[in-house]
Structure formats: structure tokens, C-alpha cells
């Protein structure tokens, strides 16, 4: 299987994730979509790693996974905090940071 295919798949997954970020309003789902985009990135990295026969890319992916985990932890922490404060779980409603 040519590397191109993997890269195109990765691009598709990334775009799908982005659609989710733009369209959905539930923070949990947006976080999930971010996971999608990250995994797409990981896929691209692995594809290049395979193409070059170099395992550095695999280490990158591992780091990406760690970062993703961190992001999940913080993101979900925020979601829980929002819920605790009886805030609506809708990113459009949470806009106190506007200028």
C-alpha cells in the first residue's frame, strides 16, 4: 500500500475532526473531535516514519499521545468545573472572554 493513501486518509480524518469543532457546541464532543484531529496527525507522522524507515516519528507520536492525554485531562476538568457551577454546557454561551 502506497504511503499516499495513508496521508490522504489522515487529511480526511483531520478535516472531519475540524468539521466537528466548528459545528458541534457540546464541549465534550469538541474535545472528542480534537482527539480525532490529533490522531490524524499521528497517522501522518507514522506514515512519514514508515516512508523514511526512521523510527523518530514513532517517538513523536508517543509524545503526541501524551500531550493529547494532558489536553483531555484539562479539558474534561474544565467541563466538570462548568457543570459544577451550573453553567450551560454550550461553548456559545460561555463567552465572557469577549472584548
Amino acid at each position, binding site marked *: 500500500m502506497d504511503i499516499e493513501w495513508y496521508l490522504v486518509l489522515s487529511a480526511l480524518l483531520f478535516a472531519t475532526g475540524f468539521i466537528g469543532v*466548528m459545528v458541534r457546541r457540546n464541549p465534550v464532543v469538541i474535545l472528542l473531535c480534537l482527539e480525532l484531529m490529533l490522531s490524524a496527525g499521528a497517522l501522518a507522522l507514522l506514515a512519514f516514519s514508515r516512508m523514511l524507515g526512521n523510527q523518530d516519528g514513532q517517538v513523536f507520536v508517543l509524545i503526541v499521545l501524551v500531550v493529547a492525554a494532558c489536553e483531555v485531562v484539562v479539558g474534561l476538568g474544565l467541563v466538570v468545573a462548568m457543570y459544577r457551577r451550573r453553567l450551560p454546557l454550550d461553548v*456559545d454561551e460561555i463567552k465572557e472572554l469577549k*472584548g
Partner: protein
Amino acid sequence: MTATWAWLVLLFPLLGSLTIGFGFKVLPARVAGLIGISAIVAAFICGILALIGLQGEPSESRHVASSLWEYANVGGLRIDLGIYVDPLSIFMVLVVTGVSSLIHIYSYSYMKSDQGYHRFFSYLNFFVFSMLVLVLGGNFIMLIVGWALVGFASYALISYWYRRNTATKAGMKAFVINVVGDIGLYIAAILIFKNLGSVDYGTVFEKAPEVFTTNEWEIVAICLCLLVGAFAKSAQMPFHTWLADAMEGPTPVSSLIHAATMVTAGVYLIARCHSLFELAPTAADVAAWVGLATLMIAGTIAIAVTDLKRIIAYSTMSQIGYMFVGVGIGAYSAGMFHLMTHAFFKALLFMAAGSIISAMANMQDIDKMKGFRKAMPFTAAMLIIGALALSGFPGTSGWFSKDEIIDFAHFRGGMYDWMWAGMLIGAFMTAVYSFRIIFRILPGPACKEAEYLEEHGHVIHGEPKNPATGELEDTEVGYPGEEHHIAEQAGGMKFAMSVLGILALIGGLVQVPGVDEVITNFLEPTFEDSVFAHMHPSTHEAWVGLGEGALISILGITFTWFLYIRRPDLPVKFRERFRAVHALCVNKWYGDEIIDFLIVSPVKAFGRFCNRVFERFAIDGATAGVAGLTRSAGAAVRDMQSGMLRGYAVLMLFGILAIAIYFLIRSI
């Protein structure tokens, strides 16, 4: 050697001023006064030694230039800290130091009870130093330096009693008008440098005839700029308004600075630059005509005002007008001669006036004075001598000097005959106003101050009042003290006035037409390059002129006698009848108002406009505009900052896409 003596002439007054100034806490008042006097006397002696040294030279090389160090030198504009000694400057040095010595001696007694004794002598010595820089300076920049320093000293002494608002205002007026004159000199010096490549007297006067043709506009411009300086310093029209106000200063100051020396600097300037003025006859005529106008107008004012010191001040303006006419029409040595005799009799008049004013407890209005003849015989005698010399009574010094100028105008003829006529009218007015003082103050029943003096032997104690406004004085600071001294009782004053009285009487004998012409001969080396050097009225013509002068003077005195002694009701009637004329004269021909209207008000209005309108709307407006722009730009961006997370995502995507597309297009 001559140069060394000349430098010493400068050094002594400066040292005196600094010693008194720095030692004001240590030195007893008497000692300070003595230091002041001895510094000036030392300068006078050095002046005489310099004169002897100079006379030892052959006539054609009778000028010495000397320089201490290079003061500034850029792009060919080299300025030396230098002096230029020739008969003219030595003449001025002797007049200045001589009269100053006497006035210092006078002040030593007169200012005795003043609280700022040290300050007074320090300033006075500094003034003499500055005046000597002015007359000795070896280039136009040194001239400007001296010119401005005397202006400063004059300011400091006019507002010497600085607690008086009137005094500080008068000082300011004098200073600012003099700075305007300084600027005239700046521009003249720049023009001279531009055309002649130097500001040194020697080079300038030598090269000027080669560079300029007669009445070329540039030389006329130079001379007119010099005249601005001269008019301002010598209180000629239209810069004359400050001199009368300058009488706020102590009387010795009026006597020294505003009569005998500083105000005649303009005459010295024209005489010094005579080779320039002869290349620009138009400018010289301007000087003469302005002098004539000033002498006549000042004469009318002097007849009308009633403040004793101001009458003498206007007479000073008038006499300087004569000098301007003299040096303007080419009678240089006559002009300088009149400068000298004027210094004698005008200083004398002021001293006598000071004596009377202290007897009046600082009142200066001649309407209130009467009958001092018996109370103050010595002062009265001196006052009469001064008035006689001023009005040109036959035999006195004023007779010889003034009539020499008048005569020269007639001698030149043509347009100058008009000046001759004008000056004769002026001479008549001179006699009137000088004897108006005499006849109002001396004879008649004694006023209460004179009576008090006669009975008690000391002057009456008055309320401390500002003589100009009648306000009560703040006696705590800069107060002239309980009493000034009067000439009858103070040795110093008596001595100074006696010497001046003698000089005023017989000083003219040095220059008697056909007999001896000391001044003319002495000054000849300076003026020998002049086209008028060998133009003199014949002895016969000169004596005819003197006869006319004597006639006018005696007529004037008789007329005044008739007016004030014989028919004292007439002046009042005149005043009633010609109310408008009288108002014009009393208000100094509205000179203050005209200057105020033409210059001061527009400048003030401009300042107000800048402050209230321009600053507020243009500058603050622009600042506010910049701030507003920033704010609205912020507002525009703020709207994009919606807090909508998804919106941000979209924007980010737009950005990513834009960058991607840019690189894609580039890679094609």
C-alpha cells in the same frame, strides 16, 4: 603699556563689584562703599595713565588693539576677547569713570540708610564695568556684550527697590526694549560679518569703503540696524518710553546711568561707526531727524509733567536728541563734547533733585515743592548752576557744546537748516523747562517740608510711600530707609556736587571757538578719515551761532520768569485753554499707548490665541484624535473578539488556508 592700563580700567570695577558682592555678609557697609569708590577712582586713574600713554604715540598710529584670548571662532567668524583703545574710547572712559567716581562718592552718603547698601554698590560697580566694556570693546561682539550688560545693570538698578511693583515693571520695560535694541545690533553684526568677513573694528572700518559704495542698500541696512540699537539704548523715538519709567530707580542711578553715561551709548556708537554712517548718508540723516524729533517732543513733555525726576529725564532725552543730530550730521567732536558737558550738568541736576526729594520725604511732585531757597542754599545754588548750563546760558558749558551742534547744522545748510531751526526752538524749550523747575521750587513761601528743615535742621519724616502710586510701602525689605541725606549736611554729596558744579560752569572753556579746541584736536585721530574732518564753520560764524544761542537762552529764561513769577496765573490759564495739547504732553504723546497697541497687545493676543485656541484645539485635539483613533481601532477589533469559540476556529482555519494557498501558489 596703554593696553595694560586699559585692561586695568576694566579690571578694577569688576573686582570691586565681585568683592562687594561676595563679601556682603562680611564687609561692613562703610567698607563696601569705600571699596566701590576706590575701584572706580582707580579705574579713573588708570584711564588717565592710558591717556598719557596714548598721547605719547604719533597721531596717525594713535590706536591700540589688544586681545586676551580667542572667545569663539567658527567658520571664519572669529571673536576675540579684545579691546580697542583710541582717543574716542579713552574720552568715553574718562567721562564714564570720572562722573562715576563722583556719583559713587555722592551715593556713599545718599544711600546711607538703605538696607541694600552692598547690593547697590555691587550693581553700581558692575554697571561701570559693563559701560567700560561697551566703550573699550574691540569688536562688535564685545560691543554687544557691553551693550547688553549695561542693559542688565540698568534693569537691576531700576528695580533695585524690588518690593515696589512699579519699579519691577519699569525694570522689565527697560530691559525688554533694550533687548530689542540688542537684536538690532546682532543683525548689524551678522550683516557686517557677511559683507566684510570680520567683526573687528580695525578691519571693518578699513575695508568698508572698499566693499560698499555710498548708500548701497546693505550698508544702509547695517546702519539702520545699528540705529535700532542706538535708539533703544538712548531712549530716542520710538523706543523712548522706558526712560521716564526708569526713574523708579534710586536717584544716583538716574544720575549715573539714565543721564550721564549709559543713555549716551547710542551717540558713542554712531561716532564709533562714523565711517559706516558716512557710507550710508541716508541712515545718518535718519539718526539726525529722529534726534530732532525726540528733542522737540521730549521738550514739550518736559514742560508739561510735574514729577521732578521725570522732567529731568525728558530733558535728558531731549539733550541726547541734540547729540544724535550732532553725530548724525557729522559734527562728531561737537556731539562728543555735548555728551561730556551734558554728563556734568545732568548728573548735577539729578543730584540736586535727589537732595530735594529726600527733603520732601520722597515726594517728587513739583506742585508740592516751594521755597527751598532758604532751607537748602547749597542745593539751590547747584540746581541753578545745572539749570543755567542746561539752558545754555552764556559762559556755561552747555552754551559752548549745544550751540556748536546747532551751528554746524546751519553751516551744512540745505535740509539741515530746518534742523537748525528746530534745534533753536528746542533750545528755547530747554530754557523754559529747566527754569520752570527753578522758579517752581526755590522762591516763594516755604512749603511745610522746607519749613521743617529750616526749623529743625533735619528732614521731615514722611510716611513710607511709593512716590509713583502713593501706596504705603513694605518697609521690611529693600526699603530706602527712614531718610536719605541732603546735600546741606552730607560731606560726600557736597563734594561731588561742588566738583560737578564747577565743571558744569567752566567745562566748556576747553572748546572755545577760535581760542582752544582741545576736544576736537584730541579726537582728531579717530575722526580724521571722516569727510567732515576738515569742515568747520569759521570762528566768526561760530561766534555768531553762540550769540544766537545766548539770546534764545536768555529769552527763554525771561519768558519763564514772566510766566511763573510775574504772572503765575498764566500757566493755569494755558492749561485750561489748551487742554488737549496739555493732555498730549502730559501723557508723553501717548507713546506707551501706541507701543502697547502696536506691539504689546498683538503679542499678548497671539500668546492668548496660542494658549486658549491653538493649544486646546489643534494640539490637544490632535492628541485626542490619535487617542480616539486608537480607541476606535480597538473597538473594531473588539467586535471580532466575540468569545465564540467556534468562530475563532473558523477564523483560524481561514488563516491556515490563506497561508497554505499562498505557499501552494508560490510553489507552482
